[in-house]
């Protein structure tokens, strides 16, 4: 039998993750070698590597649909998995693959397009009966109309320019007295920026939680959901820690929100893995936000509590298999937490760090799932995402999962670059996280880099600094032989022998 070839048009940890499923499915795994990252770890896992020769292209291969498809055809690829990010939610790319006879692992291009257009997705959600954040049906003509609406749904509200983007023409109105003034300034700004002063009004959720339901559907109309993930811990819409299930979702609500997600997916004819995002207000009311039509970074937490391999299913569904799992087959076992290891400096506004990873050590506990795109010696370039790995940990319940995750993070070390791991540790020990009382605004409102510090580290740091300083100082004093500050090393050597 001739094996089918799958091209993974992605890099890093997710490429390795998909290769694993591809091998289970008996496929030949093919990846691109980008000149921007020519000795990346994922290349070692693939059966075949295509040279992208993208050094002189203005964007890396992963963002170049025509070149990807041309090379895929040249190498007789049967399937293409886009991973996440890059072109994974680009409907034209999916359509191009299909047009050229490459089986695109994901939903139909038409659905990728619909879900990518927020207004289209929302109107489809309304048709399926999903709740949306209360908003004016269309633009409001006057400040008084906006006031009438705001009084109906309650303050605060948000004014949004209908032609808007990038925060322009957007105002949060906390109280009635300021509405007229803010309406006028939003209108003027929108008119100046977009030549269109139309303003919508929406209820503004001050402290929302980000919840998302994983769904799986096949090409024959079967759809199930695999429970929710909570991804409220985010900064500028970049998630940093995810957990499944969510402490804010009761069994009853899970059923309700899950059924709505399934109903929506069925109604629009969705297949492959997908995610329905909701935001939840402090009072527990929830609203549809959007649908992601790809595998997500945080999919492992769902896999860990359900035992279902989502990427395996993506491949099966793409090849026309029927979803043999039913909703009754899905049960939630314990709790899972994912910590993203980003080369970002949590002491300095999460600024990205580039350079070399001298040494990286992951927890050795086999129960801890590690998804990593790097090893010791790997380079972190400015060309790609700063997420280098994910650490996913299970516990019998939430408390145990937090404890296990902290232990796993204690066993992580990286020399060379700063990462978000100290941040994750601080969060996991913070009462707001422990009490599951955190929202998407937590980092902006509560987080402070001093939370990363602790007295033991501070003291040992002082010791390390002193040893380094002392070794020079004592040499300068002249009473120490110049070779390797022997006098200090006596303690060192003794300790080493005893260790």
């Amino acid at each position, binding site marked *: 039998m001739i094996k089918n070839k799958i091209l993974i048009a992605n890099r890093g940890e997710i490429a390795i993750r998909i290769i694993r499923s591809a091998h289970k499915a008996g496929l030949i795994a093919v990846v691109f070698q980008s000149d921007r990252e020519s000795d990346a770890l994922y290349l070692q896992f693939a059966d075949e590597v295509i040279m992208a020769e993208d050094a002189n292209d203005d964007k890396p291969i992963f963002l170049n649909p025509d070149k990807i498809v041309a090379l895929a055809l040249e190498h007789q690829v049967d399937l293409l998995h886009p991973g996440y990010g890059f072109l994974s939610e680009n409907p034209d790319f999916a359509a191009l693959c299909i047009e050229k006879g490459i089986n695109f692992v994901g939903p139909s291009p038409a659905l990728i397009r619909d879900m990518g257009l927020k207004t289209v997705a929302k109107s489809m959600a309304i048709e399926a009966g999903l709740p949306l954040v209360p908003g004016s049906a269309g633009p409001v003509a006057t400040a008084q109309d906006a006031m009438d609406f705001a009084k109906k749904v309650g303050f605060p509200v948000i004014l949004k320019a209908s032609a808007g983007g990038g925060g322009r023409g957007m105002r949060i109105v906390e109280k009635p007295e300021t509405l007229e003034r803010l309406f006028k300034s939003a209108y003027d700004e929108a008119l100046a920026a977009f030549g269109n002063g139309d303003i919508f009004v929406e209820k503004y959720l001050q402290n929302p939680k980000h919840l998302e339901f994983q769904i799986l559907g096949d090409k024959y109309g079967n759809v199930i959901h695999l429970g929710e993930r909570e991804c409220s811990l985010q900064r500028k819409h970049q998630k940093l820690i995810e957990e499944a299930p969510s402490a804010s979702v009761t069994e009853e609500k899970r059923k309700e929100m899950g059924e709505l997600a399934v109903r929506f997916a069925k109604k629009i004819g969705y297949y492959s893995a997908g995610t329905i995002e909701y935001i939840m207000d402090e009072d527990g009311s929830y609203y549809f936000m959007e649908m992601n039509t790809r595998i997500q970074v945080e999919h492992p937490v769902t896999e860990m509590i359900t035992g279902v391999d989502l990427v395996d299913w993506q491949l099966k569904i793409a090849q026309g298999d029927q979803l043999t799992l039913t909703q009754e087959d899905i049960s939630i076992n314990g709790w899972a937490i994912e910590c993203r290891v980003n080369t970002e400096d949590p*002491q300095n506004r999460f600024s990205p760090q580039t350079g070399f990873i001298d040494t990286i050590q992951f927890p050795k506990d086999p129960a801890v799932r590690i998804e990593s795109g790097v090893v010791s010696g790997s380079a972190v370039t400015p060309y790609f995402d700063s997420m280098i790995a994910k650490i996913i940990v299970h516990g019998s319940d939430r408390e145990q999962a937090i404890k296990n995750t902290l232990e796993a993070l*204690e066993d992580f*070390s*990286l*020399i060379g670059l*700063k*990462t978000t*791991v*100290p941040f994750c540790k601080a969060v996991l020990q913070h009462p707001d996280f422990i009490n599951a009382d955190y929202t998407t605004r937590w980092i902006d409102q509560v987080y402070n880099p001093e939370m*990363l*510090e602790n007295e*033991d*580290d*501070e*003291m*040992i*740091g*002082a*010791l*390390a*600094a*002193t*040893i*380094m*300083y*002392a070794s020079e*100082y*004592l040499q300068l*004093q002249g*009473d120490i032989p110049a070779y390797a500050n022997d*006098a*200090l090393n*006596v*303690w*060192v050597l*003794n*300790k*080493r022998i*005893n*260790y």
Partner: protein
Amino acid sequence: MGTSYKYRRDASRLFIAVRDNEKRFKIYLPKESSPVINGNELDIDFVEQEDFHYAFEWKGKHFQCELVSRDQNKAIVKVNGVEYKYSLESIFSYVRRGMIAGVVDKEIDNSIKAPMPGKIVDLFLGEGDLVNVGEPILTLEAMKMQNEISAECNGVIRKIRVVKGQSVMKDELLVEIQSIDV
């Protein structure tokens, strides 16, 4: 001399690390035993050393330290992925700096005065030595009795005002000590 004292004579092994939040760590690095930090001998294991990298074990925890930058006596050390800034001083520069800033005036009051008139028959320590609380500094003979005069604090001998054989009056200043206990 008893070996139970935390500090040995060699004051050049005593350093002060001052963090950017003003927290002070007085760190004594003995030749052959664990470091003394803020007066406590700590059972810290030194498990790894490479250029600019140290790893320690303490209280069952691992501490990975990396020197991030170094400028004169200022250092930034990354401990388990988090950076801390310190300025480092030998005890001598620390005292000198403190004298200039005028903050040690009251600390210096740990000087030793003669409790009674008598004669200095023995001096155990020299200027610049580190001294432990309770450690004898000199012997004062008075009325045919030999009295050991001990330090009342941990500190550095700044100045010895007397010599062996000298007769002293009551309350005469004998030794100036810079306390390191504060």
